[in-house]
C-alpha cells in the first residue's frame, strides 16, 4: 500500500508524464523481454501493435485503447494486475496522452529489478559496528532515535533463547551480571555459539525453511517423505555445530550423491530432496521439489510459472520446466546402513540419478514408486496430460537471473555408490544376519521342545483360591469407569476397547494381546496399569487403587491356560518346520558367502571370477531347493489347517494352495547365474544437480545469499529486511534496508558463507541489544522487537527451567503420542502434516508443508495449554521441590523461571498469593510459566 502511495507521488513530481507512468506501473511486465500477454509497451510501434488481444493504444481513441480500458478498470482483467489501481489523476494523464496521439518522446526504459542484480558490496555509512551504521543512517533519515540498551538480565535471556533455544540458569545469570569486565557479553555469545544447543536451535529454524517432514501416509503405507529422514535433521544439526559453510550445505543438500558419493555422512543432506517424495504422482513430487528449492533457497516464486508465464516476474513458463529438468532424472532410494540389513529398521534415504523407467510395483503388485521420465516437456497450461512432446527441454536456470548455470558434466560413481551392498560393511552385515537367523531358529526349536516337555509334565490346572471374579460382574464396570473415556466405541484410542472380555484380551494396536491367561504379572493390561509399561494408564486420571488392581489381576489369574494337548500339538508343528528351516538357513548362509566371494571377484575383475561364479550358483541352487522344500512343507501345513477349520475360509484355502504351487515350482531353482547381493543402480550420474548447486552458490548468484541473510536476520530481530521472505520478485516487498541487506550478503559470501560469524556480527550490534517493548511500527529499528517464542522454545524452556531437559542429541524421531512425556528437545519429535506434539500445535509449531516464517498467534488454547497441561503442572511441582530449601522462595522462583530478580510489585502480589495455609508454592511456579514474559522473547 505504502509503496503505491510513494509511487503515485512521484508522478506529480515528474510533471505528469504518461511515459513515467508506463515505466513505473506497466513496463515491468510489458517490456520487450518479458512481454506478458505478448504486449510490449516500451516503444510506440510495439504499443500500437499491441499484444494477444490486439492494439493496446489507438491514438486519439480512448474507447479503442485497451491500455486505458484495463487501467481504468472498465474491462477485465483490471490492470495493473495485483497492484494498486492508477489514481484518477494518473488516468487523466494517460487519457490526455492518448488524446494527443500517444507520442513516445523516448523509449520507455525498464529499471532492472533489484533482487535479480548481483550483490555489490556497498560502503558502510560511517564508523562503528557496520549493522548499526546502516540502521542509524535510516533512523536519521526518518527522524528517529534508538532507545537504550536492555538491562543485563533481559539481554542474557534474549541471547540465550535466540542462540540456544533455552533460557539461562541462575548460575549463568549471576556470573554474567557479576562479570563487568569488557567483552563479557561477547564471551557469552562465543560460548553459546560453541554449545551443541546452538545447532539444535538453529537446526529447527532451517528445518522450517527447508520443509523438514518425517514420513507420512495412510496407516503403514508411506506416501510422502521417507523413513529414516531424521538423519537429514541430524546432518543439519551437526553441520551447524561444525560451522559448515551455508554454500556447502546447499551443495550437499542438492547433490551430495554426485559431489561426495562415498560419504555417507554427506549423503544424509539429500534428505532435502527426499522429503518431496510422493507415492502417487511424479509430477506432484517434482512440483514440490521445485517449490521447496526456489521458495526456500532463492526467494523466487517460480511455481507461479507452472501453468503460464509469471504474472509479475520475467519468468517464462518454459523457465519452470527447464528448472525442473535438473531434477528430472533423480529418484529416491533406501540404502542399508552399517549394523542393520533390514532397511525398514534402519537405512539411509537418499537421492541418485536413475535410468528412465516406468512405474515400479513390488512382488505383490502394489505400486511403490512412480516412473522416472527420460525427457522433460513443458505441460501446456500446466496440464500433465498435455506435454509438449515436440520440444524436449534441457536444464537451464532462469535467464532473468543473469548468471547462467554451467553445462552438466556426467559424474562417474564408485562401486559403493551404484552397488551399495558391495561395501565391506554391508557384506559383513548380510553374513552376520544369516548367521543370526540360524541361531534364532535353533532357539525357537529348543523353546518348542521345552514347551512340549513342560506341557507333558504339567499338573492339572486348578483355579487359584479366592472369590471368583467375572468380567461382567467386576472388571467391566471398573474398566469402563476408569478407561472408558478413551477406550470405548466413541473413542477407541489405539483400537483398544474395554466393552467385552474378548476385546480386552485382544488388546490394542500398540501392545497387542493385553492378557496372558493365568499370568497377570505378564499381562500388558496389568503392567500398563502398574506403570511397568509406558505410558502408565489411566493417562490423565488417578491410578487404580490396590483393591482395584487386585480385581483385574484375579480375573486374569483365574483364566485357565491352554490345554496341554493343544500346547504339545503346536510345539510339534513348530519342530517339524524347524527340521526343514535349519538346513535351508544353513545352506542359505553358505550360498551367501559364495555369492559374496563371486561378486567381489567379478567386480574386482579377478581371474577366478568365473569359477567362483559357478560355485556360487551351485550353492544357491542347493539353498534354493532346501528353501523350496521348507516352503512346500509350510504351505502344506497351512492348507491342512485351512481345510481343518470349522468355518472353511475359501480365500485362505486358495491362498494356501497357490503358495504350495509356487513353492513346488521353485524347487527347480534359478535357470542360470546367481542372485546379486542387492540392488544396482546406474554407474554414472547426470551431473545436473551439481551444475544447479554450483550455480546456486556462486558469488554472482543474485539471490541465494540475500535470501539466507534475510532468514537469519528475521530470526534474530523478529522482522525480516525483506518481509516477503519467499518472494524477492517484483510482487514481493522491497527491502527496508537494501544497502544493509547487500552488505550483509556480500560479507556473508566473502567470509566463506560462515554462519557463526554472521550470528556473532548481528547479536553483538547495538541494535540487537536495545530495549524492546511498546507498540507501533518499528521498521526503522528504533527498538528491539519483542515476539512470542516459538512452540519448541516454550516447551524446551519449561523442561530446562525444571532441570529435566534431556540433552541427548539426534536419533530416530520420537513418537509424539506415546513418548510425549520424554523430556527431550522438541525438534526430536515426529513432525508431519498429520502428527505433531499437541503442545506444539497450540503454539503454532512448524507446518512442514510451508513454514518460511512462523505464525505468532495469541489464542485462548495457549492459555489452556499453559494452565492445564501435565507438562507445566508437573514441572512446576519439580521446580518447587528443587527450591524446597530456599530462604527466599519468591525471589528464587522468579530468578529461576524468568532469569531475573523479582520486582517489588511482583513480590507483593506473590506474597499475598502464597499467603498462609494452603501450600501454593508449586502453583506460584506454575503461574510464572503463564507469565506473558515466559513465552516472550523480550
Amino acid at each position, binding site marked *: 500500500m505504502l509503496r503505491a502511495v510513494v509511487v503515485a507521488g512521484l508522478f506529480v513530481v515528474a510533471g505528469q508524464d504518461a511515459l513515467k507512468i508506463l515505466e513505473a506501473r506497466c513496463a515491468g511486465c510489458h517490456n520487450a523481454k518479458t512481454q506478458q500477454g505478448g504486449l510490449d509497451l516500451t516503444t510506440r510501434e510495439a504499443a500500437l501493435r499491441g499484444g494477444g488481444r490486439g492494439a493496446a493504444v489507438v491514438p486519439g481513441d480512448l474507447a479503442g485503447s485497451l491500455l486505458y480500458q484495463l487501467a481504468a478498470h472498465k474491462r477485465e482483467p483490471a490492470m495493473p494486475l*495485483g497492484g494498486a489501481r492508477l489514481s484518477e489523476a494518473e488516468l487523466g494523464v494517460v487519457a490526455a496522452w492518448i488524446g494527443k496521439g500517444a507520442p513516445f518522446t523516448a523509449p520507455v526504459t525498464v529499471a532492472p529489478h533489484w533482487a535479480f542484480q548481483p550483490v555489490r558490496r556497498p560502503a558502510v555509512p560511517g564508523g562503528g559496528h557496520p549493522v548499526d551504521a546502516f540502521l542509524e543512517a535510516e533512523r536519521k533519515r526518518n527522524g528517529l532515535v534508538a532507545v537504550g540498551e536492555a538491562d543485563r538480565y533481559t539481554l542474557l535471556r534474549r541471547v540465550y533463547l535466540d542462540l540456544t533455544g533455552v533460557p539461562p540458569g541462575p548460575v549463568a545469570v549471576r556470573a554474567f551480571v557479576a562479570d563487568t569486565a569488557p567483552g563479557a557479553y561477547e564471551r557469552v555469545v562465543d560460548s553459546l555459539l560453541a554449545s551443541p544447543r546452538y545447532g539444535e536451535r538453529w537446526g529447527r529454524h532451517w528445518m522450517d525453511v527447508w520443509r523438514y517432514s518425517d514420513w*507420512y*501416509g*495412510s496407516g503403514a503405507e508411506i506416501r510422502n517423505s521417507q523413513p529414516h529422514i531424521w538423519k537429514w535433521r541430524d546432518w543439519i544439526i551437526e553441520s551447524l555445530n561444525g560451522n559448515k559453510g551455508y554454500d556447502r550445505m546447499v551443495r550437499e543438500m542438492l547433490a551430495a550423491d554426485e559431489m561426495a558419493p562415498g560419504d555417507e555422512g554427506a549423503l544424509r543432506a539429500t534428505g532435502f530432496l527426499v522429503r518431496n517424495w510422493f507415492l*502417487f*504422482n511424479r509430477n*506432484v513430487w517434482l512440483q514440490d521439489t521445485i517449490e521447496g528449492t526456489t521458495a526456500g533457497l532463492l526467494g523466487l516464486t517460480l511455481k507461479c510459472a507452472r501453468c503460464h508465464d509469471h504474472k509479475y516476474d520475467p519468468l517464462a513458463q518454459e523457465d519452470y520446466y527447464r528448472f525442473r529438468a535438473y531434477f528430472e532424472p533423480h529418484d529416491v532410494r533406501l540404502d542399508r546402513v552399517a549394523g542393520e540389513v533390514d532397511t525398514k529398521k534402519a537405512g539411509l534415504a537418499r537421492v541418485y540419478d536413475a535410468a528412465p523407467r516406468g*512405474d515400479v510395483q513390488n512382488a505383490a503388485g502394489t*505400486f511403490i514408486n512412480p*516412473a522416472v521420465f527420460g525427457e522433460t516437456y513443458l505441460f501446456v497450461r500446466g496440464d500433465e496430460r498435455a506435454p509438449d512432446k515436440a520440444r524436449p527441454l534441457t536444464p537451464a536456470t532462469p535467464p532473468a537471473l543473469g548468471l547462467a548455470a554451467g553445462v552438466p558434466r556426467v559424474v562417474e560413481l564408485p562401486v559403493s555408490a551404484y552397488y551399495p551392498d558391495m561395501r565391506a560393511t554391508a557384506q559383513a552385515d548380510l553374513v552376520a544376519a544369516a548367521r543370526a537367523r540360524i541361531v534364532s531358529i535353533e532357539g525357537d526349536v529348543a523353546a518348542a521342545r521345552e514347551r512340549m516337555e513342560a506341557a507333558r509334565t504339567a499338573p492339572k490346572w486348578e483355579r487359584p483360591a479366592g472369590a471368583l471374579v467375572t468380567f461382567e460382574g467386576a472388571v467391566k464396570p471398573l474398566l469402563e469407569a476408569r478407561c472408558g*473415556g478413551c477406550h470405548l*466405541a*466413541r473413542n477407541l484410542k489405539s483400537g483398544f476397547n474395554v466393552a467385552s472380555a474378548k476385546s480386552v484380551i485382544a488388546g490394542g494396536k500398540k501392545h497387542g494381546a493385553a492378557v496372558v491367561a493365568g499370568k497377570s504379572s505378564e499381562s500388558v493390561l496389568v503392567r500398563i496399569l502398574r506403570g511397568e509399561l509406558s505410558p502408565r494408564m489411566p493417562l490423565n486420571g488417578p491410578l487404580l487403587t490396590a483393591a482395584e488392581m487386585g480385581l483385574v489381576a484375579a480375573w486374569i489369574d483365574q483364566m485357565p491356560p491352554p490345554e496341554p494337548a493343544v500346547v504339545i500339538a503346536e510345539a510339534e508343528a513348530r519342530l517339524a518346520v524347524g527340521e526343514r528351516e535349519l538346513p535351508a538357513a544353513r545352506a542359505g548362509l553358505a550360498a551367501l558367502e559364495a555369492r559374496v566371494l563371486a561378486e567381489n571377484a567379478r567386480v574386482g575383475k579377478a581371474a577366478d571370477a568365473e569359477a567362483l561364479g559357478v560355485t556360487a550358483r551351485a550353492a544357491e541352487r542347493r539353498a534354493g531347493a532346501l528353501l523350496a522344500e521348507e516352503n512346500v512343507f509350510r504351505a502344506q501345513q497351512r492348507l491342512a489347517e485351512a481345510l481343518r477349520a470349522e468355518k472353511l475360509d475359501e480365500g485362505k484355502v486358495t491362498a494356501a494352495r497357490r503358495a504350495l504351487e509356487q513353492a513346488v515350482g521353485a524347487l527347480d531353482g534359478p535357470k542360470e547365474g546367481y542372485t546379486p547381493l542387492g540392488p544396482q543402480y546406474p554407474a554414472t550420474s547426470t551431473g545436473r544437480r551439481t551444475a544447479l548447486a554450483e550455480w546456486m552458490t556462486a558469488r554472482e548468484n543474485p539471490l541465494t545469499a540475500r535470501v539466507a541473510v534475510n532468514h537469519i536476520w528475521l530470526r534474530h530481530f*523478529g*522482522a525480516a529486511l525483506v518481509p516477503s521472505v519467499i518472494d524477492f520478485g517484483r510482487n514481493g516487498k522491497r527491502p527496508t534496508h537494501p544497502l544493509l541487506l547487500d552488505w550483509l550478503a556480500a560479507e556473508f559470501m566473502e567470509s566463506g558463507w560462515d554462519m557463526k560469524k554472521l550470528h556473532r556480527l548481528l547479536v553483538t550490534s547495538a541494535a540487537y541489544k536495545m530495549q524492546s*517493548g*511498546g*507498540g507501533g511500527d*518499528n*521498521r526503522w529499528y528504533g527498538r528491539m522487537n*519483542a515476539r*512470542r517464542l516459538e512452540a519448541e522454545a516454550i516447551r524446551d524452556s519449561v523442561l530446562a527451567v525444571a532441570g529435566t531437559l534431556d540433552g541427548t542429541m539426534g536419533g530416530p524421531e520420537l513418537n509424539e503420542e506415546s513418548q510425549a512425556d520424554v523430556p527431550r528437545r522438541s525438534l526430536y519429535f515426529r513432525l508431519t*502434516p*498429520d*502428527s505433531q506434539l*499437541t503442545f506444539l500445535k497450540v503454539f*503454532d509449531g512448524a507446518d512442514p*508443508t510451508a513454514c518460511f*516464517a512462523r*505464525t*505468532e*498467534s*495469541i*489464542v*485462548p*488454547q*495457549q*492459555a*489452556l*495449554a499453559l*494452565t*492445564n*497441561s*501435565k507438562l507445566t*503442572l*508437573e514441572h512446576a511441582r519439580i521446580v518447587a521441590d528443587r527450591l524446597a530449601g530456599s530462604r527466599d522462595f519468591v525471589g528464587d522462583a522468579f530468578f529461576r523461571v524468568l532469569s531475573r530478580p523479582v*520486582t517489588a*510489585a*511482583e513480590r507483593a*502480589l506473590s506474597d499475598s498469593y502464597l499467603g498462609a495455609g*494452603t501450600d501454593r508454592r508449586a*502453583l*506460584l511456579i*506454575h503461574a*510464572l510459566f*503463564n*507469565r*506473558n*514474559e515466559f513465552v*516472550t522473547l523480550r
Partner: protein
Amino acid sequence: MRRRTLLANLGMGVTGMALSAQGVPGGLHHTAKAKHVIWIFLEGGLSHLESFDPKPELNKWAGKTIAETPHRGVLDAPFTKQNVVEFTASERKLMTTVLPLQVGFQKRGQSGLEISDWWPHVAGVADELAVVRSVWTTDNDHAAQLQFHTGRHIFQGYYPSVGSWVHYGLGSLNENLPSFVVLGPPSPPHLGGAGTYGGNYLGPQHSGVHLASDPARPLTYASPEMAMGAEEQKRQFEFIGALNALDDVSDESVRARIKSYELAFRMQAAVPEVFRHESESEVTRKLYGLEQENTRAFGQDLLSARRLVEQGVRFVQVFHGYRTDGNGWDAHTELKKNHTRLCGEVDGPIAGLIRDLKQRGLLDETLIVIGTEFGRTPGVEGAREGRDHHPFGFSVVMAGGGLKRGVAHGETDALGFHAVVDRHYVTDIHATVLWQLGLDSRKLNVAGQQRLDQDYGAPIRAIIA
C-alpha cells in the same frame, strides 16, 4: 513492516482489539438471511442414486453395459476426462455395467420431491429441503473431502475452508465459545484432515475448533491434567492476570495475552456445558434419537450443534462416517448393507434437527447443508453389488437459512452419471452459504493471495427464496 501478530480471538470475538473477529471491514456485503450454518458431511461418498437423485433407468438396464443402453453417450461426454484429476498414477476405471437401484423411492410431501426409502424421517420433512442434484468435483479419491471444503484438489495444496471464510467474514456472536466448531470424527489427515476446517492463510484464529461431544473432555487442555480444585484455579487465574497486568499494556500483544486468559477461563466453563444434554426434554432427546443405540452418537452431535447455534456459534461442521471404521459411506461392496446401516444412523437425527430448529423458530436463520465428497457410480464395481467413487455428478441437500423449500435443482443425465443441467462445482455451495449469511464470496479477498474463479464459486440463485 511489523511482523504478523494474530491476536486473541479464535472466533472468540475479542471486542476492542485491532484485529478482532468483528467480521469483514465495513460490515456485511448485503442483508443476511441466515446467521448460522450446520454443515453435515457424510464421509466416504453417499450414493446420490439411492438417496436424493433416483434413476429408474438403472432398473430398466440392470446388468447391461452402458454401451448397450440408449444412454451410451455418457461415456463420451466431455466431462469424463476434462475435469477429473487422477489421484493415483493409473486411471480409475469407469464402472460400466449398470447396477439397479438398491432401494425403492417415492414422491414425498406436497412438493413431491423424490427421496429413497432409506430416508423415511428425512422424507417426512421433504418440504423443507432444497436438493442440488448437479454437483461435481474433480478428485475421484477421498481427498475430495478436502476439495469439498476448500474448493481445491489436494494436489494444489491447502486453502481456507468454507467454515473459516464464514468465520473470517462474520466474526463471533458469543465470547465464551469458539465460533467455528467441528464435531464428530474428522476427515483423516491424508484425505484433508484439519485442512477441511483449516483457516490456512486466513490464520489459525479462523480455523474450526474440534470438540468431542463429551462433557468430561470436550477439548484438549479443557481441564487440568493433574488434580486442581476449581476454587484454587480461579484464584490462580486471578494471580496470573494480576502479574501480566504489570507489563506494558500499551503493547497490543500484552493486552491480547491478558484477554486470552480471561477467554480461556470462561471457555473452560462454557464448552463442557454445551455437551450436558440432561437438561433437554424427553421429547427432544427422542427427536434426536438419543434413546437408540445406532442413532445416539450422531444424534448427540446434532443436538450439540443446535445448542451451539442457540448460543451464537456461526458454523458447526459435523462429520459422520468414520466413527466406527475408516470406510464410512464408501460402499465399494454391498452398498445396500452399508447404506442401510448408515442411513439408519443419520436419517432420524437429521429430520429431528430440522423439526427441532423449526419449532424453535431457528430454521429460518440456520442454514443446514448435508454434503459428501462425491456420489457413487451408476455401474457396479466388482461382483458384490457395490458402487465406486463418482465425482461427475452428485447431490447436496440444504434446508432452512432462507432457501426455497421442497425444491430440487439441477439434473444429472438419465443414468445419474454426469451433472448435465445447471452444473455446480462444489464452491457454488460455498458461495450460496456465504450469500445467505450476507457475504459475497467475490469480495472475500486477502491481500497477497490470488483467488481463482473456481475458488469464489457463484451463489445458486435458483434455490434462494
